[in-house]
């Protein structure tokens, strides 16, 4: 049995939408900064990861989840993207203390991941299958983040030029402090602005960014700002809005403008037909398509 609906489609978002206040790094209040410098390509590579997890069977009510995570760095050479590094893992995700030893020992060729391991939050309180599935999903996601971090760190060590990372870079102290990496966050379940600052962000026009903020969402403290890469007229206020993260130690107005201009350059070609095309740059779509293919 290797079917069923992917957990990515059934597990509800773990993070509730909320706001977090952040200190302003540029001036005293959040305001809009038009990007006046020429829009030009600056990123040398793009990093993204994917995951897929499915319940393939139940053992006495315990969901057996096969999860596949992958990450890829696609380097731009002569305006074409080629694979610089690619990692893929396929594992069986089991809560070891809920399954029989025999099952754990005879699980076949797949690598086993104990979803109740200490690294992943310890035992799941209830034996509810959905709770176990949620945990499995959460662990798969963390494995994916780890894989992405591995590639990002490798790029920091070996790669040449700035790396465009899909998502936050604060998950890794090494990546979060690297000068050659920018994380671009497309979803905004957490907004790091409140009240007036929020209105400034919502009012950003295409080619404008917000003032830089300092945040510590995970392990590393990073500088961040919001950037409108597409005109949101007629759409919701978060349409075409991305949040950019760079190492806090690297933050400066010039750097923020430069990286913003690089991101604006990536607005073409469009990532359609992906539903997230308003915030997804083509390099990231290419990563996803490549991962889907391989």
């Amino acid at each position, binding site marked *: 049995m290797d079917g069923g609906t992917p957990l990515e489609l059934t597990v509800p978002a773990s993070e509730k939408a909320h706001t977090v206040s952040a200190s302003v790094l540029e001036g005293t209040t959040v305001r809009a900064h038009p990007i006046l410098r020429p829009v030009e390509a600056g990123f040398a590579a793009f990093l993204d990861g994917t995951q897929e997890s499915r319940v393939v069977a139940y053992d006495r009510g315990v969901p057996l989840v096969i999860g596949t995570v992958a990450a890829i760095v696609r380097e731009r050479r002569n305006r*074409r993207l080629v694979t610089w590094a690619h990692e893929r893992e396929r594992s069986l995700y089991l809560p070891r203390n809920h399954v029989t030893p025999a099952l754990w020992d005879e699980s076949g060729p797949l690598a086993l991941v104990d979803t109740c391991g200490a690294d992943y939050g310890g035992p799941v309180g209830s034996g509810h299958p959905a709770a176990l599935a949620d945990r499995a999903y959460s662990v798969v996601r963390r494995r994916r983040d780890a894989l992405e971090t591995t590639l990002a760190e490798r790029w920091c060590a070996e790669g040449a030029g700035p790396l465009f990372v899909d998502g936050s870079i604060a998950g890794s102290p090494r990546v979060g402090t690297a000068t050659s990496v920018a994380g671009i966050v497309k979803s905004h379940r957490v907004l790091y602005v409140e009240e007036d600052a929020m209105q400034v962000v919502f009012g950003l026009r295409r080619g404008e960014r917000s003032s830089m903020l300092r945040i510590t969402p995970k392990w590393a403290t990073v500088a961040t700002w919001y950037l409108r890469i597409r005109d949101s007229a007629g759409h919701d206020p978060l349409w075409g809005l991305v949040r950019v993260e760079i190492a806090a130690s690297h933050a400066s107005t010039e750097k923020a403008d430069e990286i913003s201009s690089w991101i604006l*350059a990536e607005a073409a070609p469009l990532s*359609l037909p992906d539903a997230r095309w308003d915030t997804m740059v083509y390099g990231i779509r290419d990563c996803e398509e490549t991962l889907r293919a391989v």
Partner: protein
Amino acid sequence: MSLGRVVATERRPNTPHEFHFWTALDSPVGIGTIVRVDGNTPVEGVLPHIYGIVVEGFSYTDLQTPLHDVLGHDGNPSSPGFAPTERAEIRLYTAAVLRQIPEEPLQPVPMGQVFLATNEDVAVALRMDGYLRPENNTGIPIGIYRAGGTDSPIYLDADFLVGPEAAHLNIAGVSGLATKTSAVEWILASLFTHFPAQKGSIAAVLFNVKGPDLCFLDQPGAITDRDREIYEQLGVDPAPFKKVEYFAPYTAKGHGLNTLRSNEALAHNLQPLTWGLREVLQFAEVLLNRDDVDAKADALIDFIKERVIDRDFSDPVLSRPHRVQSFGDLEQWFRDVLNGVESRSSGDTWRTHHVATIRKVRNRLSNISTRCAGLVTDEGVVSDLPFGSFEDRTVYVVDVASSEEDAQDLIFARIVSKLREHLERRDLGVKHLVVFVDELNKYAASDAPDTYVRRMLLDIAERGRYLGLVLFSAQQFRSQVHRRVVGNSGTSLFGRMDADELATPGYAVLSPATRTKLATLDKGQLMVRHPHFTQPIFIRFPRPAVMNGRDGAERFPQAADLSLEESVLRSLRRLDPTLTLAWVEDIVSQYDEAEVLRARSATMLARPGDVRGYFKAQFRSRVPQRTAAPRPAPVPLKPAPDDDPYGF
């Protein structure tokens, strides 16, 4: 290094005859490129190798709809379109399978890497390895297959070009690109060079049907260094044909030969083509309108052919015995018969033939020498191709370009029939003969009434290969040529084709991309179909090393109209260069033009050692003119005596 990978999907699977592969964007693959697939999984212990030719190509990006590109440019096509990243793009090709090794079991093409075919691969893919074996090489180089740095000679199999396995060659293409004629000239040069010794001798008869196309085959033409390289690669000497003989009828006036190759500098191998009654009557039906000449007329013509021509013929109604050997004799015979019949009081038939039929046949046959003036002589003088003594590797060009249509038909019919007769008897002089006929649209049209010439072409196409009689034919529109003629051509060549022609059903077997390529072929490029090639192949051939018609016509302008004396002198000088115009003028001044032309023809035909004497002897001797002696004055009568009683 591989240049592509085989791909197959459920929607577009590979089959035993077709497969798909993708390549890098900068790969040298194009329509017509030959590739090799190396399978990864052994079949019965053998790793499969598949050879294919690219017949279709696709290119697309990950753009799902054109609208997305519109959105990407905000609806403004002139907006800055630079994107730092090019969209993912594919070059996807479809290839038709040429050959699979091993050939059994025949399976769908497996996944594998795709390589550009090497020279050896090309030979295997086209099954040329079967007839290029050193111990039995029957390969006739036809051109170069060129792709991605591969320059592979392509060979036809002589057994399938000249027989006996298959035979004949047909070439189609639009006019004006100098492809059809050039290709035939080049292939003949190659055939003469590489025709296997064990297959015997070969010669060619070319009918020049338009302009000066084939008039300078013995003169060197300009070729490029690249052409020279191809000649060297294919082992053919870049030189004009060494042995060429030209034949042309006289003009209607009869002074000179009716050809654009009439320049005196080229007269050494130009001979007249003239026939008399005997030669023509056998092919009378070529010239006679079938609606006009019915069974009764046919019966009389047969009677004349069998009982009158070349026989001593007597009949009570005739005033004298006749021996009919020329159209002139035939006219006298008809006149005598009609006089005899009409002077009788016993009915209006003669030997079951009604007088009206006799008149009709007389009218039609007598008319032939007028309609084919220059070719057919009233006097019966014959100058013909050297049937029985054809020479190996010799080209015989019959220039009918300036002849009337009737004369052209007669020439085709008689020459080809004679060739066939001699080949059947194995006494032509050569074992194989190539006959080249251009403008097949005209002579073997599919929708035209049945004619003798068409029947004859069909006969060659269907049965010629058993005799060694091979038809090389050309036309602009293959679809308009009788199917049995083109269908029996083992080898077909295609130059640049007209789009309308390509839209006809005969080309439906070609992929749209192949048809597009055919419509845009450059000079010197051909698509080749040959029995050994399971798919058409694109090749490049060198410019023929002979002077083309246009250059020849400029360098050797046509001779001006000659006087009777000049034309006689030009003809006879080929036999005796010491002759002078004054001598000719002295001889011919006393005779009428017909007599002079007859004497010239007879001399040319006899090729005597003593040209002067022979030519002079052809004229009837005439009594020299003398002034009459004055008549003696009459003797006056003696006056009558005065006393004469009878005087007045």
